């Protein structure tokens, strides 16, 4: 077990020391947030209506585009080869790296997004439900992003491909995430959507390590 913690700890220190990992993801998130009112217009009422959706899409894109950092470096310097020869199955390595990516990128963003909601005139009472839904959703986002990153790790220009592969898998997360963050929706709806979002996260908790490890092995051949 401490092997998994060692891997997560190392990945976190690497992200923090090298290239300000959290800073770049936050920077990207701000860029997307600034484009929305410019595209849609600064009308406050309109912005307020689309605020939760806009924040979700910004979060989703930020996680997606920081995904290639999960395996790329370890693949290029040969660390992945050795990690397959550790005392623990390779699937656990994939899970540990996804968790490290979640802790260093998706979780901070899922907490920062509702707080930055005022930029798109998010009503104050919508902040808490949005934050809860985003934190749960971010787990699924990171795990699915891990599959995309693993599938494109060896390709030269994998960036675009990872988006096409992963975005369709993000659709359910977006749908239930959004309905879980509506503050004044039908009482049962928010709770139900949150549960389904949690279920999606659990399913990806199982599927992602298996799929990622399989994809990575094929690149190590």
């Amino acid at each position, binding site marked *: 077990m*401490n*092997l998994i913690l*060692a*891997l997560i700890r*190392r990945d976190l*220190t*690497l992200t923090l*020391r*090298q290239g300000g990992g959290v800073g770049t993801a936050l920077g990207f998130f701000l860029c997307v947030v600034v484009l929305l009112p410019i595209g849609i217009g600064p009308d406050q009422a309109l912005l307020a209506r689309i605020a939760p959706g806009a924040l979700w899409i910004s979060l989703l894109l930020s996680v997606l585009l920081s995904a290639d950092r999960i395996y790329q*470096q*370890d693949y*290029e*310097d*040969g*660390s992945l*080869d*050795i*990690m*397959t*020869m*550790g*005392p623990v199955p390779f699937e656990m390595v994939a899970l540990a790296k996804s968790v490290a990516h979640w802790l260093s990128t998706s979780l901070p963003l899922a907490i920062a997004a509702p707080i930055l909601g005022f930029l798109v005139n998010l009503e104050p009472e919508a902040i808490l439900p949005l934050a809860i839904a985003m934190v749960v959703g971010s787990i699924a986002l990171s795990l699915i992003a891990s599959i995309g990153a693993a599938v494109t790790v060896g390709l030269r220009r994998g960036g675009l491909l990872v988006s096409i592969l992963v975005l369709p898998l993000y659709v359910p997360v977006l749908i239930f995430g959004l309905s879980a963050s509506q503050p004044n929706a039908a009482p049962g709806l928010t709770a139900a959507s949150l549960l389904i979002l949690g279920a999606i996260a659990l399913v990806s908790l199982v599927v992602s390590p298996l799929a990622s490890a399989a994809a990575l*092995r094929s690149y*190590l*051949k």
Partner: protein
Amino acid sequence: MELSAQDLTCERGGRIVFRSVSLSLKPGQLMQLTGPNGSGKSSLLRLIAGLNESQTGSVTLAGGSEDLSIGQQAHYVAHQEPVKGALSVFENLAFWRDFLGGGDVDEALEAFNLSRLSSYPAGLLSAGQKRRLALARLVLVPRVLWLLDEPTVGLDTASLARLVGVMAAQLDQGGMIIAATHVPLGREPDVRLDLGGAP
């Protein structure tokens, strides 16, 4: 305890790299793997390490522990150096100690004369020093089988002597080494395998 492989075939990108290769290695033996570039030396090492699969035949480590694969009982040192520039020399090895399960970092650093650099960021190291850091993993975690792909590349004479010493110690303790190299390793290899001839 014996490493044996029968009738291995490796195909890469549609091309048969080698066919019907067999080998056997006993504790305390050094095997030298030779052959022109592209003759599949690396592929064979990766195959034994479990990173690659053979279309035909099989590789077995008789007498090894049952529940561990060959790869989990072996070290594989390839051309790339798994060294993270942002971490210090010590932190790099400490991670591998935690990941591969135990071992003394200072002793491993001392074996390749890296103790003095242990607190420096690995990014500042020269290629030769990074090479020694990668090789230090061999001493860090004891494993029965060593798979070395051109281990002497980038080493100066002093480091080469250290490597030969470390290899000798491994063999004396009943370990097995397969080294893909053309450089003499301080002792006559017990087994030779040349992949040059294969079609």
